């Protein structure tokens, strides 16, 4: 199963009344309904434990929903082969996601390798992607992850997620561990890249500033529920208490930074 160009016009991901419960019956996500458009970036914000990461994992079947359904490319994830599904969704997590025993080249080329691409095609793709994320391939391809700075590692993580040209990216606090300057830089580059390449992205963070910078729409999760979702430009007008609480962090942040 693959995406066709036509599919891109409809939702990349659609949650319909999705719930996820632990074996002990505690609900981590409940009643989640949300559609991410084919070229849209939706950012979910919320406190730790609000169910944001769980929602992401329900998309690529690292978890299966306890109720409701999740559709990717118009097909229920339950009908997808999990391995095929994951190979066509780019997955970026905090820096630990790079394999320390593999070079940058092999980390980035991993999904194409799993897909059985030819060696030359992988090399060409890795070269292209590293340059795309601002890491000259000549200089970086042979390095190991521990020889990179935090920002460089995160760029490699983004390049790796893009390797097999997936129509959908899932990102779990990918820039959380970076210093503020690098972070702002990489956020800007990321936004340009996603728009230029026409990707859909579902992005999770606890930082509202990041959410507003990256998202076309920003959703707030609290105690497993999506309590508000607004276009990024109108988010600060949102009346929901949790959204207000998040918005209040911006002022404090602005005061501290500047």
């Amino acid at each position, binding site marked *: 199963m693959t995406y066709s160009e036509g599919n891109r016009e409809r939702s990349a991901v659609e949650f319909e009344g999705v719930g996820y419960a632990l074996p002990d019956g505690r609900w981590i996500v409940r009643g989640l309904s949300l559609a991410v458009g084919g070229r849209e970036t939706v950012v979910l914000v919320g406190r730790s434990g609000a169910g944001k990461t769980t929602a992401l994992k329900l998309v690529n079947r690292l978890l299966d929903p306890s109720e409701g359904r999740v559709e990717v490319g118009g097909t229920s994830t339950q009908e997808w082969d999990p391995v095929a599904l994951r*190979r066509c969704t780019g*997955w970026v997590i905090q820096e630990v*996601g790079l*394999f*320390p025993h593999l070079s940058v080249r092999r980390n980035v080329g991993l999904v194409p390798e799993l897909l059985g691409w030819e060696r030359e095609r992988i090399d060409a793709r890795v070269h292209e992607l590293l340059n795309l994320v601002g890491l000259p391939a000549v200089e970086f391809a042979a390095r190991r992850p*521990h020889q990179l700075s935090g920002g460089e590692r995160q760029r490699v993580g983004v390049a790796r997620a893009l390797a097999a040209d997936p129509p959908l990216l*899932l990102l779990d606090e990918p820039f959380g561990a970076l210093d503020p300057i690098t972070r702002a830089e990489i956020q800007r580059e990321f936004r340009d890249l996603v728009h230029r390449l026409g990707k859909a992205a579902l992005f999770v963070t606890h930082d509202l500033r990041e959410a507003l910078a990256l998202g076309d729409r920003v959703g707030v999760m609290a105690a497993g529920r999506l309590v508000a979702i607004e276009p990024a430009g109108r988010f600060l007008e949102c009346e929901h208490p949790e959204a207000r609480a998040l918005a209040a962090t911006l002022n404090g942040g602005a005061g501290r930074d500047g």
Partner: protein
Amino acid sequence: MGDLIRYLSANRGQVVSLFGEHLVLVGIAVGAAVAIGVPLGILATRDRRIEVGVLGVTNVLQTIPSLALFGFLIPVPLLGGIGASTAIVALTLYALLPIVRNTHAGIRGIEPALTEAARGMGMTDRQLLARVELPLAAGVIVAGIRIATVISIGIATIAAAIGAGGLGVYIFQGLAMVNDTVILAGAVPAALLALTADGILGWLARRLTPPGAPGARSATTAARPT
């Protein structure tokens, strides 16, 4: 010391052949323990019941005194009897624990986020094992093999008691004759063998440990506690 060197050079032929027997005992036993122990250690990371059973049994085996284990095995059909094959079975059983334990600990010690990233990228179980888990655990697994080897070289000296040959022959002869030189003619080459194996496998374990991987430090020392 002079006595020892004179004794060894006078009996050069026999020393070499006992040394060879010793190497064969240890080599086969550790080889078998790797062939059994690594898959068992992997299985133990996959299933909770196997984990409890495997770690429990290998633990208990380790508590049996070695001379007693050799003795117990003599009357056992097929595996037992007098001679090298019985000794190899006993040595294999001893070598299992560190290998199973380190394989298990090495894989369990991998950052869960890494294995999840691997799954999230679409690796099958087998690809996860071959491309991520085994390479990242290799240093810790080899550290287990190193311990197993050093232990086996020592215990193999006792195998001479059941007629398995090896450098223990000199030790038991020396004990019977109350002759320190003969005891040392067995003990010193065995100790040198153990040190050499320790050095080589320690170097290998360090080489196989990727920088920043779990166990990057502990693999260079010894078994990781679990």
